[in-house]
């Protein structure tokens, strides 16, 4: 799987795949998609890189420390966004009751807390898929 033609083509396509993944995450309020599908598309680009160019080079670019950090703090980010409501005296995970400015509908900054939670969940899902792939694909020396 380490051919000459494959390496050249994949090296051209991978930045566009991850750019499309970030587009789907950020435009979750306007077009279909949302956080889960966008996170998986971002993880697909790293998995394609690890398949074609070898597992060791992919592990140098994304060491284990970064993956563990992204995954743990992604879950904590969701809970912290929910605690914003409790500080102001309204129920947990509330968006409009807590008095957050909802923005102009139809642009990127719509929704208040929805866009921030969406980015956190998207990065977290991508990191989980990459961790699963790296753990299962280790070969014995």
């Amino acid at each position, binding site marked *: 799987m380490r051919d000459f033609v494959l390496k050249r083509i994949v090296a051209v396509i991978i930045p566009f795949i991850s750019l499309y993944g970030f587009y789907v995450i950020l435009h979750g309020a306007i077009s279909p998609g949302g956080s889960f599908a966008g996170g998986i598309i971002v993880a697909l680009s790293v998995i394609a890189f690890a398949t074609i160019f070898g597992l060791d080079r992919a592990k140098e670019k994304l060491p284990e420390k970064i993956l563990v950090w992204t995954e743990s703090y992604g879950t904590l980010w969701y809970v912290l966004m929910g605690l914003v409501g409790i500080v102001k005296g309204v129920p947990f995970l509330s968006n*409009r009751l807590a008095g957050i400015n909802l923005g102009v509908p139809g642009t990127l900054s*719509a929704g208040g807390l929805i866009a921030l939670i969406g980015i956190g969940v998207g990065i977290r899902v991508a990191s989980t898929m990459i961790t*699963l792939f790296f753990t299962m694909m280790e070969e014995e020396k």
Partner: protein
Amino acid sequence: MKIRNLVFLLIILLAVFTMLLAVAELPPYGSPDNPVHNMVTDRYINKALEETGVNNMVTAVVLDYRAYDTLFETIVLFTAAVAVYVTLKKAKGSESGE
């Protein structure tokens, strides 16, 4: 074919026939007065823009009206990743160590 496979095939054909009898009695597909579209869906469709501010209704349902379910689903994904890590790293450690 073996005898076990034939017995399983007969049981599965019986199950298919029973389920088809049940599915044929469901309300017709695609009509606008199914019992699926009740007042909860009407509230979600009519007031999604002024209570949430997003145009996409599925995102508004998943991340604002039912954000509690999405929180626990994120925790389920985290638990699955930790479980896979613990199962496979321990195998390599005990094989190469001792």
